[in-house]
């Protein structure tokens, strides 16, 4: 019997990916940390840890705490900074054929633009993911992400400063995420990715202190999947640009739910901690699903919720 080899390639606007399974920022380091565990060449793309202009040391510990089917993190965007990223990390990443997407974070709009300019034309950077939604840093981040105008302005500035595809990463901590999505679409985003973490908290009842030194943190993992899936569905039906689904995806079935809801690609986050091979297991599962159902192109099942096609 001839096994069908489904075509898993997808396009996020101008960005072409060999398959729609990427790693999510902050959960896969600079990719290299997983080199011994995962054949990085097989991934759709690697989204690296959020990079800021200057190195950031991050929040005091404890920075993570487990919650039911999830975790809270308050890393505080600890990262090596742009310079060290370009010098130490990127050259190693270039050895892989997998596309590298740089997640950028600025304290002000200008910093986003500066980061984008600095990455302009840099070889081995396939696209930018603009983090306007980090709940774990005092200024910037979240403040932009919950305000459609500010999100649009950041997007506009980044677009102006770069020749690379621009993906804007959205915060779920808003009343109507479609409004933000539409705002960044109008401002020129090539794609949106969602969701970043939900703001949450945990308390130690013995010490009566927050379990995170930062008091609050970002909730990720399977716990948030239903919320993420709903928002992806909402946004996919509100904008014309591609949507990247993120949030609680741990297996191929989760990934397929996001595709059916309208995601053009997915990012795998917390699952990497539970199962370092999660991305590859998901790719295998998606391939088998396509084979069983006779699906030739993964795009054929995308945004088919309720259409109930019999392909």
């Amino acid at each position: 019997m001839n096994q069908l080899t489904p075509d898993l390639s997808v396009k996020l606007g101008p960005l072409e990916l060999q398959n729609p399974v990427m790693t999510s920022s902050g959960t896969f380091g600079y990719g290299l940390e997983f080199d011994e565990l995962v054949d990085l060449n097989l991934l759709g793309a690697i989204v690296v840890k959020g990079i800021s202009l200057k190195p950031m040391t991050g929040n005091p510990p404890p920075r993570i705490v487990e919650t039911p089917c999830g975790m809270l993190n308050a890393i505080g965007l600890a990262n090596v900074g742009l310079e060290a990223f370009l010098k130490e990390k990127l050259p190693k990443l270039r050895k892989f054929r997998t596309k590298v997407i740089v997640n950028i974070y600025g304290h002000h709009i200008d910093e986003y633009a500066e980061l984008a300019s600095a990455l302009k034309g840099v070889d081995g950077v396939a696209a930018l993911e603009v983090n306007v939604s980090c709940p774990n840093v005092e200024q910037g981040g979240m403040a932009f992400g919950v305000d459609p105008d500010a999100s649009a302005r950041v997007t506009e500035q980044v677009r102006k400063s770069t020749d690379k595809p621009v993906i804007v990463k959205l915060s779920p901590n808003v009343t109507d995420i479609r409004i933000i999505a539409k705002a960044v679409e109008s401002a020129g985003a090539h794609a949106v990715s969602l969701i970043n973490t939900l703001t949450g908290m945990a308390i130690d009842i013995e010490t009566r202190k927050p379990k995170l030194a930062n008091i609050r943190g970002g909730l990720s993992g399977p716990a948030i999947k239903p919320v993420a899936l709903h928002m992806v569905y909402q946004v996919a039906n509100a904008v014309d640009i591609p949507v990247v689904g993120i949030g609680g995806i741990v297996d191929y079935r989760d990934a397929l739910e996001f595709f059916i809801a309208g995601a053009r690609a997915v990012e795998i986050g917390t699952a990497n901690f539970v199962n370092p091979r999660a991305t590859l297991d998901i790719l295998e599962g998606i391939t088998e699903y396509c084979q069983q159902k006779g699906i030739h192109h993964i795009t054929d099942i995308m945004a088919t919720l309720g259409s109930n096609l019999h392909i």
Partner: protein
Amino acid sequence: MKEQQLEIVFNRQINSNAWLMGLNAPEMAKSARPGQFVMIRVSRSMHPLLRRPFSICGTKDTLMLILYRVVGQGTAIMAHASHGQKFSVLGPLGRGFTFPDAEGSIVLVGGGIGVAPLFFLAQNLKKHRFLFMAGFGSADEIIPVGEVIGTQIDVSIATDDGSIGHKGPVTELLEKYIAGRDINKKAISLFTCGPKPMLKRIADMSKDQRFWCEVSLEASMACGVGACQGCAVKAASGKDKAYYHVCKDGPVFAITSIDWASY
């Protein structure tokens, strides 16, 4: 570093609250170095979600040994596991102890379950003479080294309640040992692991005494491989980093590298 499904060869309770698990791990048992650790996925469900970190407390042929205390949901699941069951294990992870200089005196100081990485170190110190001091809550919490790693080792015991050995913290044994010695103190190599107050006390002592001391630390972890930046500990001032990551830069650190005030 690998992620493997490892089979439980045995899993037995060895005192009121400590368990010993033997996993069949030909590769990891061979490559592991004292002070390194593994991350165990204790459940197939998503609750508990994250892997649990455990020091390797010894090896025996193809066996990798894990000594653990039942403190919460994850370790309770481990305690219920039986022969033949498999766990996904990620490891060996992190940097181990620096192998001690053959010249000086070697002292291992463990508190409670903190003896685990020191047992593995002791196992590998065969050719060296060393002292082992261990503190426990009381006699029934003692973890017998022979039963764990299969080699009899003299251990000076301290207990909080004085039910056996010295009554008081194990650091008092260490203090006595150091006080009673006239030699160049720098020739002492200390290896330690245990509860925070014990480590802080030793950090204090090592400030005055200037002996060489390595400490194995704990921190909440998610990835175990240096990717998430979750397991930060504050570096002592003057270090090139603000924070170290226990999983990658440690879990073993020179005691002088850490900012003990904030630990």
